[in-house]
């Protein structure tokens, strides 16, 4: 175990990177999922088709491939865009942090699209009618009735999406981001102790995902409190 001494700070900063990616991609994933769900539920045929293409593509291709394609694709796209203004630019470097965050948010967002869509449709139509009949506006009905019902329906799947995001952060090492897996590879190269170095990564991921699981369980218990059986 003494091989690991001297690497703790690298693991610590890499964990911070993982948590930052998780937070940023969580926010983006919710946004992509909500936009996707809204498009699928809209009356516009074009919006529906685009959303369908989105979920088919991102659920149907390997995640690591999506990360690579978005990293290199965005670099190429940005380079040609910048060259329009200044032809002397040879290459625009896209930060791996943002390319990776964007990629895993898009992937998990495609699953979240279906979760949010299902939750929207799962809200009792009677509750919505009752709110409208009481004179609540569309917006009030959405905020006070539909959202509270929706999150309870979406929560179990949403917990899974959060775990997917955490685990997908490991994919970003392939585009050179200094995260946990990347640190473990460096440490292995120096110390020649791959198992020790990778088991530490495993334990850190397990720690993060356990916190998320407990958080979701707590929320589920709170959300279910209104369904307690009559006593």
């Amino acid at each position: 175990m003494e091989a690991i001494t001297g690497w703790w700070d690298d693991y610590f900063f890499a964990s911070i990177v993982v948590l930052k990616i998780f937070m940023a991609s969580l926010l983006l994933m919710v946004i992509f999922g909500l936009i996707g769900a809204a498009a699928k539920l809209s009356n516009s045929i074009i919006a529906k088709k685009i959303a369908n293409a989105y979920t088919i593509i991102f659920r149907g291709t390997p995640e690591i491939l999506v990360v690579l394609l978005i990293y290199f694709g965005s670099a190429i796209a940005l380079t040609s865009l910048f060259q329009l203004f200044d032809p002397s630019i040879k290459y625009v470097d896209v930060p791996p942090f943002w390319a990776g965050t964007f990629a895993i948010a898009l992937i998990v967002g495609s699953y979240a699209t279906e979760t949010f869509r299902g939750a929207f449709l799962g809200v009792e139509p009677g509750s919505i009618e009752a709110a409208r009949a009481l004179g609540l506006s569309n917006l009030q009905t959405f905020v006070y009735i539909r959202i509270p019902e929706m999150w309870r329906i979406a929560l179990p799947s949403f917990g899974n999406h959060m775990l997917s995001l955490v685990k997908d952060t490991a994919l970003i090492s392939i585009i050179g981001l200094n995260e946990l897996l990347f640190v473990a590879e460096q440490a292995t190269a120096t110390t020649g102790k791959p198992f020790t170095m990778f088991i530490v990564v495993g334990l850190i991921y397990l720690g993060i995902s356990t916190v998320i699981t407990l958080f979701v369980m707590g929320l589920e218990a709170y959300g279910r409190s209104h369904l307690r059986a009559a006593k």
Partner: protein
Amino acid sequence: MTQPLIQMQNVDKFFGSFQALKNINLEVHKGERIVVCGPSGSGKSTMIRCINRLEKHNSGKILIGGRELTDSEKDIDAVRREVGMVFQSFNLFPHMTVLRNLMLAPQLVRKNNKSKAKEIAMKYLERVKIPDQANKYPSQLSGGQQQRVAIARALCMSPEILLFDEPTSALDPEMINEVLEVMEDLANEGMTMICVTHEMGFARSVADRVIFMDLGEIVEEASPQEFFENPKNERTKLFLSQILSH
């Protein structure tokens, strides 16, 4: 005579190519108690759901308190504030306690502060005789209690008109009376009511007028006595013989 509270003039309603309402004409004055009955699929629910625009009529005119129902959200909201509705399946908000169910619209729509809204809520919970259930969730109550909460929720808005859409049809038989009692109290206090119901005892004792609908039309409209003793239309007679035979 004063202007009617509800006026429906030549109202038609289609679901796709199916005509759910055919040339409906109805006037209801303040304080009147109307019972609407008829076989299922006859358009009873659709008719009262047009009154607060949960369904949109396709032609004809509907005026509530002189205000015409059009696509104007403002008019629709104004009408809904004055027209309460009680549904067959209660439609309470499952994620809110009984008290919050009752306070929501007085706070959001009538802009009462929290303590005023709570005072209103408790007043009507007492009126439907279940103030002790205020902090429970709907799923913890019996069907009859849930429907009484739903009635109290509608009353919290002090509506001019209450619409009842088969309020006892989803209840176990032993719970029907507790709901009917509340409805009878309201009727005796002068509330303007339109009730879609098959409770003929209620119609007999409470209604000023009974309306019989079939195939989207108002077939017969009469006082309860006239309606039950001496129905004119063949379809009314058939319907009455079917529901009163046992």
